[in-house]
């Protein structure tokens, strides 16, 4: 006698993170710690795999132990085109860095329905002066192979022109599928 195969159903996460189950959840990722943002006027693209249809309602990033209220951050999400970031789907406005050691939520002007697939989460800042963000370090060559791409701009553009990643940090950021809390 045989039984029908049970099919796993991936739940919609509340907090989607580039370091979480839909992100780069691998052994080589260390515990996220506070690190200064890597360079002024830089956008970093980090991959996210969305396995189930969901709604992007808020962006967020995790501020580190020292913040710079004069620095602006922008978060955005991009389509995947042949394994690289392509077209921008949604973005926040330029937002002053908030409270130290807190998750900072930013609600975009519109929500997005994301269908299953690969996406790129972008985080950008115009300053690298005491602008700490939580991040995890990727050991050895992993940084370049799965750490994503970057672009020399403080404003994630409508269409990405990704360059090879110079750093080995994955910044702790993502989106929320819920309006509150």
């Amino acid at each position: 006698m045989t039984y029908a195969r049970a099919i796993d159903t991936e739940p919609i996460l509340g907090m989607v993170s580039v370091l979480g189950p839909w992100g780069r959840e691998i052994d080589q990722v260390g515990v996220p710690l506070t690190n200064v943002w890597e360079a002024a006027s830089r956008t970093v693209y980090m991959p996210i795999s969305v396995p189930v249809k969901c709604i992007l309602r808020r962006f967020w990033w995790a501020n580190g132990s020292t913040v710079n209220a004069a620095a602006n951050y922008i978060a955005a999400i991009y389509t995947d085109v042949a394994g690289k970031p392509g077209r921008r789907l949604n973005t926040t406005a330029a937002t002053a860095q908030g409270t130290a050691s807190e998750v900072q939520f930013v609600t975009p002007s519109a929500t997005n329905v994301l269908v299953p697939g690969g996406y790129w989460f972008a985080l950008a800042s115009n300053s690298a002066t005491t602008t700490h963000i939580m991040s995890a370090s990727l050991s050895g060559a992993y940084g370049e192979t799965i750490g994503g791409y970057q672009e020399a701009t403080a404003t994630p553009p409508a269409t990405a022109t990704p360059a090879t990643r110079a750093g080995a940090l994955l910044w702790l950021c993502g989106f929320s599928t819920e309006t509150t809390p």
Partner: protein
Amino acid sequence: MAYLAAPMTVVPREPLWSFPGMSIDTFPPTNSAVARFGTGGSIMTYPSANTAIYVPIRIRRPTKAVKLWWSCETTGTDNVDIGIYDRNGTRLVSTGAVAKLASSNPLIVNTTDTGLKPGLHYVAVNCAAATATFRAISLSVPNLAAAGVRTEAVGAVTLPATATWVVNQTLAFLPIAGMMLDPTVA
């Protein structure tokens, strides 16, 4: 001549490795909605008395929870409560107030067998004393807030029927707790 709308196929037997484990808990990345942080547990005191901690977990197939557990350490026999909530904050099952173990063992409590549909759920814990010790994961803030772990100042040890949870930006205590799926485990 009529044809079947769908071709007849042999339904493959479920491979043993695809069954869910004996426990769905807050730490292993297979079920947890919290990222794997590559760190082990340590002995920690409960961060705040009568404050519930809600840890997201992923239920990916119909599951029946039969027991709830929480990894204890040697200090304190204060009352605790362990429960499961759905993603809307509705309590599905809980142990009620039970005395914590004063030893380095998991407290395992029989509960009403509770069917869980696939979806995001929360394992909830609460303790009546901030002096009681548990096996837990210590993480720098705001890692747990970023992982979707939530808290609520309940004011008592009994977990509420409906959670009124908040993002706790200062929480650094990830409890090691979960649900047993196999009723034969003592």
